[in-house]
């Protein structure tokens, strides 16, 4: 093994600076967060006055009602945003894969939500949704379709779906771009051969195009899922996790626990749990990429 390392010493030397930086900015914070998760950090004391409490923070989290509520919200947020963004993005990619007049303009327009800053988008949507004088409410009342503006983000039952819509609006272009790139790699001769063999449009899609996109689909879904699990800006700016914690997802809850309430220990324990989940997703992401590489090598 040492001989192998020596043989590849130049390669190791090239990656060494990157590894050193990662150790400082990634490995140490991870270690510190794990360490902190075993301590009680009362809000009235400095962090250095923390006391060791073992797994207490983890049991506190797992037995609290808020944890299950926030976890449920996170699941709805992540699954809802990921699945719908992917389906819409895929559909848009298929539509834009055909050649038609204005395709370039339409593609540029559809990418706009993705390039707009998430902060700006959050404020814009906050005003669109505004429960008293939002644009949607004004249009609905103006058309006589509602007596008063609908309550989008000030109601515990509608706030999360409303935020998911914003998130989908912002990230479906990403799925669209990924799938459009994938569609470019589907061999044209296979599609033509299938057509010659009498396959209709749906059969060509299902038996030729879709299987060919399985890897890029997996990667896209995993990237969306990780991004959504970590998504902070939209829920924090639009509602701050409210009303009544109805739109708190893990990441906003962790932020509030740490920076708003200074429960660094509990927030760290939450972060460790989140880290484990994300690492699991990351594992599948890497596996999907490795699968791609192996297939490419096989070809």
């Amino acid at each position: 093994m040492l001989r192998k390392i020596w043989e590849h010493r130049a390669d190791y030397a090239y990656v060494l600076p990157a590894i050193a930086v990662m150790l400082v900015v990634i490995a140490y914070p991870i270690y510190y967060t794990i360490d902190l998760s075993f301590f009680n950090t009362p809000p009235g004391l400095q962090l250095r006055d923390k006391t060791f409490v073992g797994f207490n923070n983890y049991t506190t989290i797992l037995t609290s009602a808020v944890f299950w509520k926030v976890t449920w919200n996170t699941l709805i947020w992540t699954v809802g945003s990921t699945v719908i963004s992917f389906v819409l993005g895929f559909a848009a990619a298929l539509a834009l894969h055909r050649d038609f007049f204005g395709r370039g303009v339409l593609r540029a327009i559809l990418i706009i939500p993705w390039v707009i800053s998430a902060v700006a988008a959050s404020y814009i949507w906050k005003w669109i949704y505004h429960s008293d004088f939002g644009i949607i409410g004004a249009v609905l009342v103006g058309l006589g379709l509602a007596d008063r503006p609908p309550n989008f983000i000030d109601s515990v039952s509608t706030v999360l779906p409303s935020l998911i819509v914003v998130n989908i609006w912002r990230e479906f272009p990403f799925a669209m771009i990924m799938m459009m790139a994938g569609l470019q790699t589907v061999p044209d001769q296979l599609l033509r051969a299938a057509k010659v063999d009498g396959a209709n449009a749906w059969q060509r899609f299902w038996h030729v195009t879709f299987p060919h996109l399985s890897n890029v689909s997996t990667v896209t879904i995993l990237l969306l899922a990780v991004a959504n699990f970590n998504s902070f800006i939209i829920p924090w700016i639009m509602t701050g996790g409210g009303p009544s914690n109805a739109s708190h997802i893990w990441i906003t809850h962790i932020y509030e626990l740490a920076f708003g309430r200074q429960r660094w220990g509990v927030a760290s324990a939450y972060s460790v749990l989140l880290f484990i989940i994300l690492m699991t997703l990351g594992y599948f992401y890497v596996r999907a990429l490795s699968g791609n590489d192996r297939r490419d090598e096989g070809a």
Partner: protein
Amino acid sequence: MTRFTLGGAVLRGTVSTALIASLMSAPALAAPPVDLSKWSPEYVRSIAGTQDFDTAADCAKVTPLDYKGRLTFWYQGVFEGDPDLLRQYYKDFFETFRKTYPNIQLEEQALTYNDLLDKFRTALLGNAAPMAVRLQILGGTEFASKGYLQPLKPEDVGYSADDFWPGAMKAVTWDGVTYGIPTNNETMAFIWNADIFKRAGLDPDKAPATWDDVVKYSKQIHDKLGIAGYGLVARKNAGNTPYRFMPQLWAYGGGVFDEATANPTYQQIELDSPQSKAALQASYDMYVRDKSVPVSALTNQQADNQPLFLAGQLGMMISHPSDYNVMLDLQKKATGTDKDKAQTVIDNMRYGLIPTGPDGKRAVVFGGSNIHILKPEYVEGGKVDEPAAKAIICMWSSPEWSLKMAYAGSNPGNLNGFKTKWMKERLDSIKFLDVTTSMLPYGIPFPALPQSPEIMNIIIPDMLQNALTGAMTVDQAADDAAKKVKDLMGGL
């Protein structure tokens, strides 16, 4: 009600508060520059413009004007809800400071009310705090109790404790030690649109006398005109929420603890008392039962109520005297017929005392800001330039600048500010200033406890949101909030 045993820290805080209070009234100390027992709009007018102050000369005694140094400074600055007038005064202050102390390299950073605490706490964890900081009145005790701040009393920057409001001095005192200087202190007032009142069949020149009246008026305005009656604010992590709900809570006889009494001990949690629940019920009645307040109250702050008010879509709200100037600024930006509509609202803008509770109790938050110096070990670079820090503190808390920096929205922290010529000018130019200065004697400071920011910024808004969204009943929401305060005080 919930009883609990507080730790030694709180006990020390109480003892220190009592000690300071007694010292404030001790005849051995010099007399205060103004007679607070005579406080009234007439008295304020009588003292305005009676004394001249030379700020540069006064501050030169603290830090020589040719002093060479470097200062990092964060402060709670102007935000979207402030008038342009205030922006100009902030600009003027820093220009004047640089001219007065040309050899002090000042690196200042403005942060909004809602962002400052989070950023400051984070910087402290990384020992990357500024040398001096101006915090909201709510924040000082938290950082003093944790040992981040240096002892700093008015005498250190050329003033006396008597030069400041006793309530403001309580907010900068922890464990018997003073850790900061008040820069400005204020109480808000009740604002209404006389035209809306008239059209809703209410007396246009009379503010609602009680909070029960506010509920009734709000419903009447909504039912008759189809617009929001009262500008309720229940957003989380926004200073606007406690500033508007606490006066209501105290007026009904409730409180978080006994902070509304003359000598608070903070030993008994009152959030689940029948009086506190009655105050919460009033908000519930307006939001849920009558639907007479903005639906967006849960995500809004006062800056969102201002355009609603100017558009004639809101009948009543609680705010600073500066809201009149804000309306003028907003009106200037309006176009076409909106400009005329806005002018009609401004012409019909009225200010009055904040309503009382059922027993005639009137209360308002005694707000403001304080300025502090950090200990070197928490500061970026590990050094604090004390003379430079004291120079800016002396200047900001001087009679001149503590008035100018609070020109439209607040009042000078330094009581001598009321004697300056700028106060006289302000009384003539800032409409309704009399009303807000009249509210000062009713001012109640937030509990001088390190836990106050979490109570006011998170627990109280959570209680409101839990009740108003129907996630909990009024009783459950109040009980839940009381339990959270109890846990918090117990160190959980």
